[in-house]
């Protein structure tokens, strides 16, 4: 962020993802984001009014896969702001979002055993 721009200015006055798009509720810190290839974005990139500076920075950063948290860290923006901006880009079809593997509802001890096995195998190989 250059200078003291308030988060609300960047997001156009909103601090929560668009309420009209239910899918945005699914955006988690570990949701994975990648920009749609520039060639496919077409007019969207030319339109000064549609995308703000921070959204263009996100598109540039996410030429490959990163989590929402990594986007926030690399751009130096608060997590909540990045969620709104990524949500808008998702709305516009400018980014692809892979939802978190575990649905954003917390049910203690109801984790799928197969997922935990996959995590275990991975960790043991990397140790």
């Amino acid at each position, binding site marked *: 962020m250059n200078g003291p721009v308030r988060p609300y200015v960047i997001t156009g006055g909103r601090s929560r993802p668009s309420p009209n798009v239910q899918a945005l509720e699914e955006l988690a810190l570990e949701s994975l984001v990648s920009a749609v290839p520039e060639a496919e974005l077409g007019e969207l990139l030319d339109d000064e009014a549609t995308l703000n500076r921070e959204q263009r920075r996100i598109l540039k950063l996410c030429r*490959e896969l*990163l989590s929402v948290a990594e986007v926030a860290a690399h751009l130096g923006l608060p997590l909540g702001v990045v969620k709104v901006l990524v949500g808008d880009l998702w709305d516009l079809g400018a980014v692809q979002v892979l939802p978190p593997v575990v649905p954003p509802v917390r049910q203690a001890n109801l984790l799928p055993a197969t997922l935990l096995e996959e*995590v275990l195998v*991975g*960790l*043991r190989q990397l140790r």
Partner: protein
Amino acid sequence: MASANSAEPVYLPSTVQGAVKILVTGPFGVGKTTLVGSLSEISPLRTEETMTAAGADVDDLTGRPEKTTTTVALDFGRITLNPRLALYLFGTPGQQRFWPLWEDLSRGALGAIALVDARRIEESFDVLGQLEEQQIPFAVAVNTFPDTPDYPEDELRASLDLLPEVPILACDARDRQGAYDVLIDFVDHLHATAVLEPQP
């Protein structure tokens, strides 16, 4: 803030289909970022979240409760487990004033590792209570500092008032192997208590 993250982004393989997360929590200075750093394949990244909380400790003369905005720094790391799955480790502050953040952070988490400094056990009471209250599966990991007294496990369990099913592990948060063992033991514990998926 930007200076900590000036490194070039390290992208995930394009084959990755999704990510899971585990929280690393505990009181200030217990070694959360150190543990995340020992486990992470990337240099730990720092991000910030703003938190609005009712200023309960502020004298309210107007009858209108003041809201205060706090910025919380979160350090996190990443492990690519296999070509399709990644694991994120989020250092999560374990003091009561950060509870408003927990809902968002813990949603969808596999569980939490609660780091404990055995020299300052009482500083962990808040966070252990919060994990129990939020029904987040967790293990305790004692970060063994050079002068950490060697308490027997049952004594530690009693002092921390832990239920019998909560694993008590130990590691030097700076040591990669030890940190991995803690993480593996914790996921193994989660697996042992997990239910089988219903057959379609």
